[in-house]
């Protein structure tokens, strides 16, 4: 049964009041009753005493009726009977009349016993309706004598008067007690309602509201008593609890959010491995219908072994193959934590918490990386990887082979240490990196320096690797040592510009060199001479000694020609037995003459190709810049023309182009 506190207190207080009232009423009535009874007894004793005295006097006065004259006593309403007994308890007088008195009471002998030396006694008649008071009648035979007992008087007093008085007294007292109790109960209940009931109801309703989620303010908090304190503390508590609840909700939201959004498949199992709770990622991977964790494992037996042999103090962390929602095979990293209950003496397993991380993609990536690493390790090209700050992060063995730098030499150091693209004024190193940053790619031939200081050519390719934001995160440089190729290219170039037989520049190179020389002479405003040479009788030598000897002769001629000119001059074999010479900055024409004469002189001595003494000569045509032409091609043609002049004028001599109309050559001679 639900009883309110107010009602309980009301009942309790009411009961207390009633009990107290009953006790006090009982005590009061008892005392009052005793008082009434005492008064009754006193009256009985007084009457019996008076009668005993009257009887003694009557005896002394020799009256036959000893007490008959005490009518004021005998006629009293409550005096039912008066008896006078002898000292041997024989009745000698009785009122109202002898005929109406009762037969001697059965308890008379008891009354006699009660005396036992005292002057009076009393007893209540067995029916309780009246009470007998006895008093000794004593007589003093003479003055100074010991009084003798000569009889007894008995007064039978009706108790009805007393009983009625007691009855009335009880009724009155109970009525008064009842009325005061009712009033007290009413007042106290009202007070209890005001002081306790109402405030507690306020608190009660506030607590209920608080349970429903609102933060109520108890109005009775201004009350200065304990209930007021309670209300105030409740108000503070409810506010504090609400704040904490908000924090908890926030925290719960954060945790739930984390739980649901985390990329780990989180789950909770009971101790038998049945799934109790999973997060979004778990459902995403395995679906929502999985009941037992073992079901998703390909190696089910093995995972069962884990459960059974699990050391409950530690977690399990294993890599496992599992079956995904759509039957695909996934690789997960499984962490499983036993959840133990330590509250009891012997700890026991409650369940498991765990999570799985899908590492399938990572595994693939790792495989790719391993492959890439292997490729890089085995590549012939040198590879270096820098971060965005151009600090070297990684190099491969080929790098070390090419540059001589070990991994320890370069890791963490700036790429400048590699001296990439050194000393090229047309394409400085900073330009390379600028290109890479701009175009994400640079490719080109550069000159690098090895650890030992040796410079080598390399084919370098640098590309940037961008991160998610599009910024370059890494730069990968791949380079090849192209020294060997370079040599081969030089060889090819030589084949194109130089005469293979004599090693002298061929016609093509001569033409370029002549153009350069002319331009140079123009800038310097210097004189330039071009000689066109042709061996005399070379056809006859070829015919007589064969081409091999002819070629050898040409090689010796070329050697004598190089010895005749300055370092800054150029000699070239144009074709067959035709040679050409550029004389830079000749100053005076005489200098050209001097060189021409020296060439003719040197080649007039016998040659010994293949051990054969062969005598030959050379015819020279000379054209001058700027006198004969300011054009290179024309200068050579003019020199050719002048050579024919010399040939025509008897071989083994020289002619200037300007001598076509006059015989200046003769004059010089």
């Amino acid at each position, binding site marked *: 049964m639900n009883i309110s506190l107010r009602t309980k207190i009301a009942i309790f207080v009411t009961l207390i009041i009633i009990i107290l*009232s009953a006790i006090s009423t009982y005590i009061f009535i008892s005392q009052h009753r005793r008082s009434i009874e005492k008064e009754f007894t006193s009256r009985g004793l007084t009457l019996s005493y008076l009668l005993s005295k009257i009887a003694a006097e009557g*005896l002394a006065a020799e009256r*036959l009726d000893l007490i008959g004259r005490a009518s004021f006593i005998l006629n009293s309403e409550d005096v039912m009977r008066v008896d006078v007994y002898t000292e041997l308890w024989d009745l000698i007088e009785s009122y109202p009349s002898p005929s109406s*008195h009762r037969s001697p009471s059965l308890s008379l002998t008891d009354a006699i016993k009660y005396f036992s030396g005292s002057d009076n006694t009393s007893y209540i008649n067995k029916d309780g309706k009246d009470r007998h008071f006895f008093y000794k009648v004593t*007589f003093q035979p003479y003055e100074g*004598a010991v009084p003798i007992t000569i009889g007894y008087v008995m007064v039978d007093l009706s108790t009805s008067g007393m009983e009625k008085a007691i009855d009335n007294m009880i009724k009155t007292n109970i009525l008064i007690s009842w009325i005061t109790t009712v009033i007290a109960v009413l007042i106290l209940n009202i007070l209890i309602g005001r002081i306790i009931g109402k405030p507690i109801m306020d608190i009660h309703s506030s607590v209920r509201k608080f349970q429903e989620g609102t933060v109520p303010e108890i109005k009775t908090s201004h009350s200065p008593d304990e209930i007021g304190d309670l209300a105030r503390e409740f108000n503070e508590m409810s506010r504090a609890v609400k704040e904490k609840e908000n924090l908890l909700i926030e925290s719960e939201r954060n945790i739930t959010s984390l739980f649901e959004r985390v990329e780990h498949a989180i789950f909770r199992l009971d101790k038998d491995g049945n799934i109790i709770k999973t997060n979004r990622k778990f459902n995403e991977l395995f679906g929502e219908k999985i009941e037992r964790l073992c079901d998703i494992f390909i190696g089910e037996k093995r995972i069962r072994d884990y459960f059974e042999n699990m050391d409950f103090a530690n977690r399990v962390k294993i890599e496992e193959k599992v079956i995904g929602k759509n039957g695909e095979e996934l690789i997960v990293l499984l962490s499983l934590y036993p959840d133990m209950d330590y509250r009891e003496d012997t700890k026991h397993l409650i369940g498991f918490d765990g999570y799985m991380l899908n590492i399938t993609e990572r595994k693939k990536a790792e495989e790719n990386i391993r492959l890439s690493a292997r490729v890089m390790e085995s590549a012939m090209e040198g590879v270096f990887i820098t971060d965005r700050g151009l600090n070297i992060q990684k190099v491969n063995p080929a790098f070390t082979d090419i540059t001589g730098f070990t991994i320890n030499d370069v890791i963490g150091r700036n790429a400048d240490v590699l001296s990439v693209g050194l000393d090229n004024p047309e394409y400085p190193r900073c330009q390379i990196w600028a290109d890479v940053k701009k175009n994400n790619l640079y490719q080109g031939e550069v000159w690098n320096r090895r650890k030992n200081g040796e410079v080598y050519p390399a084919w370098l390719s640098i590309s940037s690797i961008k991160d998610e934001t599009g910024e370059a995160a890494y730069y990968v440089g791949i380079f090849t040592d192209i020294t060997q190729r370079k040599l081969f290219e030089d060889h090819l170039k030589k084949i194109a510009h130089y005469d293979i037989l004599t090693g002298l520049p061929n016609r093509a190179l001569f033409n370029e060199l002549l153009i350069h020389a002319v331009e140079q002479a123009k800038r310097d405003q210097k004189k330039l001479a071009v000689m066109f040479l042709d061996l005399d009788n070379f056809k006859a030598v070829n015919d007589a000694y064969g081409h091999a000897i002819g070629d050898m002769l040409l090689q010796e001629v070329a050697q004598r020609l190089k010895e005749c000119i300055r370092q800054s001059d150029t000699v070239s074999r144009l074709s067959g037995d035709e040679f050409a010479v550029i004389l830079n900055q000749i100053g005076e024409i005489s200098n050209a003459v001097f060189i021409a004469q020296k060439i003719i002189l040197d080649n007039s001595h016998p040659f010994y190709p293949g051990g054969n003494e062969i005598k030959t000569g050379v015819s020279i045509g000379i054209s001058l810049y700027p006198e004969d032409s300011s054009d290179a091609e024309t200068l050579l043609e003019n020199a050719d023309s002048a050579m024919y002049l010399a040939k025509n004028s008897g071989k083994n001599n020289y002619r200037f182009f300007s001598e076509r109309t006059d015989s200046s050559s003769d004059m010089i001679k």
Partner: protein
Amino acid sequence: MNKRPGILCLLFLMSVSACLIYASPAYSDDYLTVSGCSVSYIGYLKDLAQEYERRTGIKVFVRGGGTVGGLENLREGKVDFAATCRNRIEGDPEDVEFIQAAWDALVFIVHKSNPIKNISIKDVKGIYAGRITNWKQLGGKNEPIKVFIARTTKSLSGIESSLRDMVLEGKPPFEGPNIYLVPTGGMVEQTVEKTPDGFAASGFTSARKRNVKILRLNGISATKENIIKNRYKLRMPLFLVAPKNPEPKVKKFLDFALSREGQRFIGSLGVLSLKDAK
């Protein structure tokens, strides 16, 4: 709010009131009343009355009050009959009859502590004549003798009458300062019980039941046998006094008292029946 518990409790409290129950007393109209001398009353009448009630179921109320009182009551009709220890004397009612019912003897009593055991007729006369006033004179302690005499103003008591007749030669006792007059013979006996130097005359029948010493007279103890054999001289009759034409219920009692059974019962009390002494 619940106020009912309080009210209920009060009602319950009020219900515990109690009252006394009255019952009617029982009365009887079939009884006898008798009044008379203390010697008769104590000596045999009280026991005889009880025996009569036992045999017949009729209650007999017996009272003492002395011979004089008994005769007065009888005269006024307050009792059905009376008892006395003396013969009819002048002034006694005429319409009554004195019927002897037993024998008694005059004895002299003193306090139990009194060393005196014997007394002579001469000494008794000396005491009542005022010649002997101190126990020293009788060989006792040096204390004045207090002599108690049952006497009323209206008539002569049974004992004094017998004393005068048998000892004092018809003369009244000398009324000296050591003579004390007491209303009845019963009171005299009671007074001697409580007075160490007291002295009084009384009847053997009642005195033997009191806490007193009965003196030997001239060396002879007052015993039933001595009285029957007349060794102890001062024998006296005990009478029942009734109207000459008594009511049947009185007549019936008197007949019983005088009958063989009645006399045998009296004799069994230690009292001399009519048959015991002639």
